């Protein structure tokens, strides 16, 4: 699998990352390098094996349905660049 420049542009837009046209070629090379490296996995014969999600055998941890968190607005808003009163704000988004 290899990415063409249009696909690189598209991935960048989906990730909301602005890239210069001049960087396109080097990015394409880097991404294709990564894909090529991962593609080595295709050499492994997995015929007859069932899909696995990891090597551990742990079960998913779950919790009881009780309220143990929240009510920490100051901490929640601590990184907000432009909080107004109890709210985050962002540049207006209306469709």
């Amino acid at each position: 699998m290899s990415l063409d420049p249009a696909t690189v542009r598209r991935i960048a837009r989906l990730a909301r990352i602005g890239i210069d046209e001049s960087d396109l070629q080097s990015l394409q090379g880097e991404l294709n390098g990564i894909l090529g490296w991962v593609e080595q996995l295709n050499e492994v014969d997995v015929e007859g094996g069932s899909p696995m999600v990891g090597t551990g055998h742990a079960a998913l941890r779950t919790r009881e349905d009780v309220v143990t968190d929240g009510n920490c607005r100051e901490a929640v808003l601590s990184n907000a660049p432009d909080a107004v009163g109890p709210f985050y704000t962002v540049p207006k988004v209306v469709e």
Partner: protein
Amino acid sequence: MSYTIEGKTGTWEIVVGLEVHAQIISHSKLFSGASASYGGEPNTHVSLVDAGFPGMLPVLNRECVAQAVRTGLGLRARINLESRFDRKNYFYADLPTGYQISQFTHPIVGEGTVEIELADGTVRHIGITRLHIEQDAGKSMHDQDPARSFIDLNRAGVALMEIVSEPDIRNPEEAGAYLRKLRQILRYLGTCDGNMEEGSMRADVNVSVRKAGEPFRTRCEIKNVNSIRYVMHAIEVEAARQVEVWEDGGEVDQETRLFDPARNETRSLRSKEDAHDYRYFPDPDLLPLVVEQEWVDELERALPELPDDKRDRFIRQYGIPRYDASVLVAEQAIADYYEEVAKGRDARLAANWVTGDLFGALNRTGRTIQDSPISAQALGGMLDLMADKTINGKIAKEVFEDMLETGDSAADIVERKGLKQVTDTGAIDAAVADVLARNADKVEEYRGGKDRLFGFFVGQVMKAMAGKANPAIVNEALKKVL
């Protein structure tokens, strides 16, 4: 029932599938310990997990899984003992992590079915494709400031079930019936309150049109419709729009649209370029969700009686018509009320009073069955007085109105107003004789063959006795003399 659109080029039929987002009833959120309750000061029901802070890990709420399994069982659907969580990636200001944790390839619930009943009595089965668990997003407010949108994350991370139907729905009425039935099942199960005004149940509507016998054409998705009536309107106007596009030689684009109830139209919502490019992948923070069949069985044993089963039992046990049974099981509280009234009494009569006079009274007074001014015991007490012939049906209406007004028991009202039915044949015979004497001309006509006048005599006797005479005895006495 067939519903079609007559176009210039022929007859079109509508194909509809619904995706319903139902907020799961739980105390805390799906992956965090913050409160899941509605309302609350802005950004107080939020943990650092919900706000997408770095290094925070989601931990699954087991009760939310149980609620999804209960719902799956209620939809007579397959429960998948192994399911997985995926990330659905998109950017929006009320989605702090930049992805929604959802279930894409392996949902917890598979195929099921919902039985709907239409106004003309037709019964149809609408297929359920799947049900999966996912997180809700926060809330954006656009009207607080000219340049900024305000974000409240109280709802972010609350558990949702997305319930996807097959494209089995063929007209607006079926869509309405499906949503009402789904809401009824959710409420019976106690897994979602079904409150569309508060947004705890909302629907995405997939609509396409086609000529009879054709395969499916391109569909459009109308997002976030928040009332059953609007869903029905949206289907109507969107189908009409698509027919026009096709007939004008155009192509319907697969896109997301918005229904504007004020203008009764749908319009394109997002640039379709990036729509549906969510780049799903398995959430690396969460292992597969494995549930035991034993646990599922346990949940199933604890399920309440579902509306369809209850309706069938009412028909069998109480001998009431299917329509009445459907009305009585519409809400669990109504069904409970009815059963209390019917217990050990004439169940058909009980059904008539509950669906007739009681519903009428609730409507008039703007009350619900929960705060009914007449309790089930009180209504039952009145039926007892009818059963032992203390009062007749006509007087019962009067007693009922009095109960509604004063809250007194039927027995007290009968006592206070002296409404006890007269069964003394002597008094009735006297009234009969008096009425016939005063209407000698009519008696002649009756004897001359004008049978219809019998009702007139009954009425006159009842009137003379202030409605308190036992109608059977009055009939008997009149027949004897005439």
